[in-house]
């Protein structure tokens, strides 16, 4: 059920203009290579879904791939603003970006509802805040037993979810180690799941109760070493904090950003070439 293919082919096959796309990974295991490949292939009109849009979505937004963002926290963690995101929201550059804004708790619940085949999620959230007034997808539902009013949000159901993991096996079972974030739910909520991995091994079932995504729900596996750089892969490599700081300078200026994208993304054929150019080892 799982196809093994180069990342370029997986994006070309499964990611189309106008789709709803989720790239997840909470600080850890961010699928940077996949995000960059989407920019390289110049997709347009995407709805980007992600709890914490960071550098990966800053690139896609700045490159004009996205018209809508579904999110709960959009910053450069530990550094500051995402300048491309801000430029899109504050000045509609390079094009307007519609926001659908939640909290972490609500995004997590919405992915869980999507993974569960339910139309909506119930949670205690948003009391006393201005978020519901600015997002008509935040509604209320009454408990049929106590009458208590709770928040309701629609299930997230991306067309495609992309994550990065340490290992897949030859059948397509995928193994995640360390901080797992919302990846399992994001994969199970999607119509199509693509997983980039550090390594392809014979079997990933050695330890029970690890987070394993059965190959059943994995449509494509792409072998992309260092595919989460500058984020990290537990047991493989550390986070490159310097890159996150450097990004602040790159993304702050439209021209500097455009030059960086041209040189690092469009002038490179793939992720391996980008890593060589950026001298990442």
């Amino acid at each position: 059920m799982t196809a093994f293919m180069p990342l370029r082919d997986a994006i070309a096959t499964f990611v189309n203009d106008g789709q709803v796309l989720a790239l997840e990974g909470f600080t850890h295991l961010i699928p940077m290579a996949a995000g960059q490949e989407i920019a390289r292939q110049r997709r347009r009109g995407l709805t980007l879904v992600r709890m914490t849009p960071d550098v990966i979505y800053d690139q896609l937004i700045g490159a004009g791939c996205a018209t809508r963002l579904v999110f709960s926290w959009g910053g450069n963690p530990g550094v500051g603003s995402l300048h491309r995101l801000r430029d899109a929201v504050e000045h509609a550059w390079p094009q307007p970006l519609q926001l659908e804004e939640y909290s972490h708790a609500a995004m997590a619940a919405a992915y869980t509802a999507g993974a569960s085949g339910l139309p909506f999620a119930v949670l205690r959230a948003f009391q006393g805040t201005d978020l519901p007034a600015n997002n008509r997808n935040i509604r209320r539902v009454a408990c049929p037993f106590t009458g208590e009013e709770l928040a309701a949000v629609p299930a997230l159901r991306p067309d495609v979810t992309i994550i990065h993991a340490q290992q897949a096996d030859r059948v397509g079972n995928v193994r995640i180690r360390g901080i797992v974030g919302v990846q399992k739910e994001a994969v199970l909520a999607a119509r199509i799941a693509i997983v980039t991995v550090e390594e392809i091994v014979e079997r990933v079932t050695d330890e029970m109760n690890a987070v394993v995504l059965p190959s059943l729900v994995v449509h494509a596996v792409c072998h992309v070493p260092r595919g989460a750089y500058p984020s990290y892969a537990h047991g493989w490599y550390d986070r490159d904090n310097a890159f996150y700081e450097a990004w602040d300078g790159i993304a702050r200026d439209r021209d500097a950003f455009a030059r960086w994208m041209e040189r690092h993304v469009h002038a490179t054929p793939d992720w391996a070439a980008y890593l060589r150019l950026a001298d990442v080892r």
Partner: protein
Amino acid sequence: MIVAAARALRNGDVCFVGIGLPSKAANLARLTHAPDVVLIYESGTIGAKPRALPLSIGDGELAATADAVVSIPEIFAYWLQAGRIDVGFLGAAQIDRFANLNSTVIGDYEHPLTRLPGAGGAPEIAAQAGEVFVMLRQNVRAFVSRLDFITSAGYLDGGDSRQRLGFRGRGPTRVITDMGILTPSPGDNELQLTEMYHGVAVADVRAATGWPLRADSRIRPIEPPSPLELEALRSLALSSPG
């Protein structure tokens, strides 16, 4: 500021910790008077005991030293929403006199002057943690008379307006700044200055506040960091990259 926040933690408290100042304060508490404080990061690490200060909320050091690593849906549903958190730490871009917080937008939501990162875990931490410690540098841009956007509820319009919404948590019980500590007044829950660092005057604090700030008639001084606290801070900083 970090030391003052650390001191406010009781040994055994279960803390929901964000990166930056809160993480520093909570780890300082853990290394000094509160060795059994339990740190929960929203990335899903429960009982993390980092040897160096983590730089991101999903740092590998947190996972490696945790008692358990769980998913994000679990952290928010099974831990925060279920009422297992004693103390939540929050920062923000703006705070008002009733300790409501804005981390979403300066200006109009549709046409913002400055787009801020947004809510993250804050609205539910503010609602559901047993109590909330706010950490924020004090100046008139941050301490404003009216928020452009309420991201996280403090005492709303003051009085019992928070209580009437049926929140699980008590709300912000202290606002720790670089000048002192503000706490909600009994009754109407408007913030008042109750503690100050040495060398700070009430007039300084008022000048850094965008509304006429109440001051307690008996403001307590905040003791300077002890040698033990300074050493623990240094050891955390030294062992951290960057």
